[in-house]
């Protein structure tokens, strides 16, 4: 049991939060997507999603690029290499914990 608790405590706290876990899982399945896509998929409100993305960007897991599609502003989001590795590790850790 102690070993189990140790494994759980090793899980990445940045990813472990349910909202961020959903964002990272979605980004892991694609090359890149826009803010609108994540908003639509996660069903979070804009403020919540923005704050989660800011936290992930701060950790270096997500790259945020502000661009335009025609004249409309578009925020492109993609998982960094570090983010992908962290997500892989998280999933392995999750399985190892139980």
């Amino acid at each position, binding site marked *: 049991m102690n070993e189990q608790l140790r494994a759980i405590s090793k899980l990445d706290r940045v990813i472990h939060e349910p909202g961020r876990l959903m964002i990272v899982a979605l980004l*892991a399945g694609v090359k890149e*997507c*826009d803010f609108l896509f994540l908003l639509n998929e996660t069903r979070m409100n804009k403020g919540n999603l923005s704050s989660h993305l800011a936290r992930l960007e701060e950790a270096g897991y997500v790259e945020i690029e502000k661009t335009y599609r025609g004249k409309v502003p*578009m925020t492109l989001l993609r998982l960094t290499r570090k983010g992908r590795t962290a997500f892989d590790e998280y*999933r392995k850790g*999750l399985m190892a914990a*139980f």
Partner: protein
Amino acid sequence: MKNPIAQYIQLVRNIERAKREGRTGELLKAAKENAELQKIMMRPRQYATTNGTGEIGWGTAWLCFALSSYASVILPASPWRGRVGMFFLLCACVAMPICLWASKKFVIQPRIGYVAFRRGKSWWTGIIVGMVVAAGISIALSLWLIPEMIHAAPSSAHHAAATVSVRDTPNRSDKLLIAGCGLMNAVLYLMFNAVSIKEHRWKWACFVLILVMPPVIGQLHPGNYLQMSPPVMLFQGSVYFLSGVITLIWFLHHHQPITLEAE
């Protein structure tokens, strides 16, 4: 995650270990959570297969192949006949990429948002293996069909140039090929609709039609494989196309465009 098979083996090992240690419930909880993550990761890809544009593209390709064959029969002999046939062949080749592009730009993007998929090593491996297998099957079929189809007519002293006659009654190979064509398209139809068929039960009827009708058409329209294939292509193309159109209408009805200034 990088190697799903290795992951699956690891999962089975973990389950066995947990069973031995009497903590199956905990492990199943973790496995369930992991499966949920996998489901979330795969969700964006489903939009590309649930809006019916793939079926429309494939159906259009088959319809164009059929029209190309019919053009050479129906149109009067002229230089234009060949060009019309070639035009339909060209349309058949570009139908699928154009439909997928239009789907992304006009259907998915305004409703779901912009998303680009990863083209990893496994994707390229799949494409190359698919192309090699398709080329192999095409070459094998050509080598099998050409001697079956064409019988050299006995050349006379007056006709030095060899003339050929084409067999117009179906043999076992023709029937087998037509049935194979139905089977291939039926399997492909299931692949196109792996996700959406759970929601659209009527697609099972289309699947059965695509599977069963080619041999029936072969019976109603006797001839060799080349003579039987245009009506079969026309039928299969129509079923694919109609199924795709209905799915697209349903998708558009259930996914309203979202505002572009939501950011």
